[in-house]
């Protein structure tokens, strides 16, 4: 029994211990579970927190995307505007300017429809200039919409841009424009060139998602300004161009007239030359007879004549000589002018010619007590000319110098080399030539009005002939002179190589 009791006691004790253990372990487990629960709660909380953060990230990202989209749109817009501007501002033809606004550019700006109108001053109507995205019948409706003209005029007057956004308050007008142009959003900006007729630019889109903001309005306003500026430039250019064109036309006309006159002058001049030539020929034949008969009479072979007759005959003879001289000079001038006289150009020794001429004139030089000198350097010695003609030039010029140089005067002949030519300067210490006569002395039959000329006879053809001869040698002749201090005649003659 005692055993049994003790066993029961033992079991009871063990039971108690077990219960105590169980209770303790349950309590401990509960504690752990609580800890786990707290852990789970913590995790859950942090997960929820993270989820909240995720929401924040998504919202920020959405904002960022929106901003970036707008930025992209603006950048594309600016880039397009720059390209467009370049195309527009380099166009100088008015009807080409609007053609530069191409659908591609427009699309990059966010629009697919556009039109532009210019106000015709005469009829007070807006005439379409471009049409992108509209059919012919759409355009007719837009053109004939009566109220729009007033809208355009007020935009031009106030220099103001409007858009579907800025017209938000004015629902009536906003809807009307949308309906007529068949768009959802639009911008209308005035074209304001300072020169000529003004107008408006319309751009629009059917896209319901496009919202016009201030940036869009600014872009289109800039585009409209560029178009206006380009129109102005083109019109100014057109004006300038037309003025220049008119001027050119006038010059051309005048040139034609002058050419015509020149032709006539040439014909007249040729007729004159021909006339002189034929008259001279006609004169020479009878002149030869007169001179011949006078000579025969003077020899006395036909009987002696009283001295009075002889004296008159002498005069006839001398005058005939002069006349023959004149006629010959005239003939020569006519021949050179008409190109009938051919210069037989050959290499000549200038010094030899000058010496010869001075030798020929030595009697007269001595008679008039005029000293002569010349200086022809070796490098200017060889000339290419017709010998007999060039001698004539020298005889004429030196003869003239002699004629107008008083006693104890000096005549000098100097030569120097130019590029491919030789220049000769024949100076005298004579009475000189008044300035106003200096050009005319080379004209035919011109004689300087002075005492010597009234006394000494001359034809007035000598220098004219000289000029013709020099020019036929491709040379030039001119004179430098001052009344009272002599003259210098200069001319050029080609150099012989």
């Amino acid at each position, binding site marked *: 029994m005692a055993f049994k009791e003790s066993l029961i006691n033992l079991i009871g004790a063990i039971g108690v211990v077990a219960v105590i253990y169980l209770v303790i372990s349950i309590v401990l487990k509960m504690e752990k579970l609580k800890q786990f629960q707290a852990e789970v709660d913590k995790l859950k909380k942090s*997960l929820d927190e993270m989820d909240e953060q*995720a929401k924040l990230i*998504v*919202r920020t990202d959405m904002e960022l*995307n929106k901003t*970036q989209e707008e930025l992209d749109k603006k950048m594309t817009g600016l880039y397009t505007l720059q390209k467009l501007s370049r195309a527009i501002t380099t166009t100088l033809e008015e009807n080409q300017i609007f053609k530069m606004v191409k659908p*591609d550019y427009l699309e990059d700006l966010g629009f697919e429809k556009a039109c532009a109108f210019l106000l015709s001053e005469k009829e007070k109507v807006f005439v379409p200039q471009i049409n992108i995205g509209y059919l012919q019948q759409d355009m007719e409706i837009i053109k004939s919409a009566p109220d729009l003209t007033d809208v355009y005029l007020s935009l031009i007057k106030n220099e103001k841009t409007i858009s579907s956004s800025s017209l938000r308050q004015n629902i009536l007008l906003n809807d009307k424009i949308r309906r007529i142009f068949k768009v959802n959003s639009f911008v209308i900006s005035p074209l304001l060139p300072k020169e000529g007729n003004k107008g408006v630019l319309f751009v629009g889109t059917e*896209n319901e998602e496009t919202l016009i903001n201030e940036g869009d309005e600014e872009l289109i306003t800039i585009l409209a300004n560029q178009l206006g500026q380009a129109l102005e430039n083109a019109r100014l250019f057109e004006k300038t161009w037309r003025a220049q064109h008119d001027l050119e036309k006038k010059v051309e006309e005048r040139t034609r007239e002058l050419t015509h006159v020149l032709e006539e002058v040439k014909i007249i001049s040729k007729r004159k030359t021909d006339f002189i030539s034929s008259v001279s020929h006609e004169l020479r034949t009878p002149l030869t007879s007169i001179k011949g008969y006078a000579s025969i009479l003077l020899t006395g072979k036909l009987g002696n004549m009283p001295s009075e007759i002889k004296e008159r005959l002498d005069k006839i003879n001398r005058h005939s000589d002069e006349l023959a001289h004149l006629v010959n000079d005239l003939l020569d001038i006519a021949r050179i002018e008409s190109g009938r006289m051919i210069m037989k150009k050959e290499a000549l020794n200038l010094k030899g010619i000058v010496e010869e001429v001075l030798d020929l004139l030595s009697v007269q030089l001595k008679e008039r007590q005029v000293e002569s000198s010349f200086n022809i350097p070796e490098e200017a010695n060889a000339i290419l000319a017709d010998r007999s003609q060039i001698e004539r030039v020298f005889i004429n010029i030196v003869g003239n110098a002699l004629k107008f140089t008083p006693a104890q005067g000096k005549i000098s002949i100097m030569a120097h080399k130019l590029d491919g030519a030789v220049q000769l300067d024949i100076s005298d210490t004579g009475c000189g030539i008044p300035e106003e006569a200096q050009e005319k002395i080379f004209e035919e039959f011109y004689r300087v009005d002075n005492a010597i000329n009234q006394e000494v006879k001359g034809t007035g053809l000598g220098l004219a002939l000289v000029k013709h001869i020099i020019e036929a040698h491709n040379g030039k002749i001119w004179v430098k002179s001052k009344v009272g201090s002599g003259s210098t005649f200069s001319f050029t003659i080609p150099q012989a190589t």
Partner: protein
Amino acid sequence: MDIGVGLSIEKDPILAAKEAFRLAKINILPGQRIDLAIVFSSIDLACTTLLKTISDSLEGAPLVGASGAAIISNKGIFKHGLIILLLGFPKGAYLNTASVKDIKAKTTIRAGEELGEKLLYGCRDTRRDLSIIFSDGLIDDSSRLIDGLQERLGRSFPLVGGSASDNLRFLRTYLYLNREVLTDACIGVLLGGGKINFGMGIKHGWKPLGKPRKVTLSKGNIVFEIDEQPAVKLYEEYLALGLSELKKQLKHISILYPLGIYLPGEDEYLLRNIVSVENNGALRFQGDVPEDSLVRLMIGTKESCLSATRQATAETKMGLYGPIFNVAKKEIKYFVLVFDSISRYMLLRREATKEVEIIKEAFGKDTPIIGLYTYGEQAPLKAINYRGRAYFHNQTITILAIGG
């Protein structure tokens, strides 16, 4: 294999067709047969005149293609343009093209089955290697189309495809088959026989954000409840937008923050774009979202997007070169076909051309590239559990390189 690519940015369809074809033809030897033409264009060029002009020069070879918000070529990305790829396959290669119209009336799953049957017609005994499909980008449960197709072609049959797109108006997308412009349709190309090698890569780069959620009620592509709440609440909560505002901005939100479905074994989530928000708070997606799947809101950055492109390119290259490791790489001619999700274009914006640069860097700067911006892509999943079965994807760059 003979490969020629031609690009044109002419506005007139006839001029564009002539220019692009002329350029593509330069690389095809004279007298060489053309077996297939793949044509992608922007929607302004999507017209029968374009296709007739090209087909007139093809001497009977089939033409397949689609419209897109932009086209991709070796020379960059073009919002307006036309790209033509001319292919002459090696001897023994087998090619079949087929189309199915009126998808909405037939249901997408039936349309997929029909396309599969048509593609198999006459080639049941040939070794089949790959199918490429183009589908209308506005079909709202494109997953079903693949399901139907796989019923006929086999679940693990390699399939790559893209859904046509328009200029982000989501109004109408176009498919090209020979001389016809189709909508509400899909087109398939089946390749087999011959010595054709191919490699493919598909990646998106979007990352999960926030708590994992569970789809508690869904049917096909419509998700009614997430965590026993109306599905739309997920978006309302994260974006702090009311229902009406959410509906208004849906196109953007759907592209930037798609729903990601967790796939065990895959390193990326399978993405789904929202098509519409229903009034009862349900969300309609472009592809299936199975009940009980774990889903998360996804977010993408330019960098993660481009790094995905790098990975997809590397995988494609591995696939192309892998089986012919010992062959001198220079001897094979290949081209790269790209289906690039329009969402990537919207995220990358100015940097979108970097994707083309990445591909050129990997394959060589003169590699013929022809690509299209899409509203959805079809490509196999790699993880072993999926046995290479193709799924409908959103937001990815899907690259297919074919050589021979």
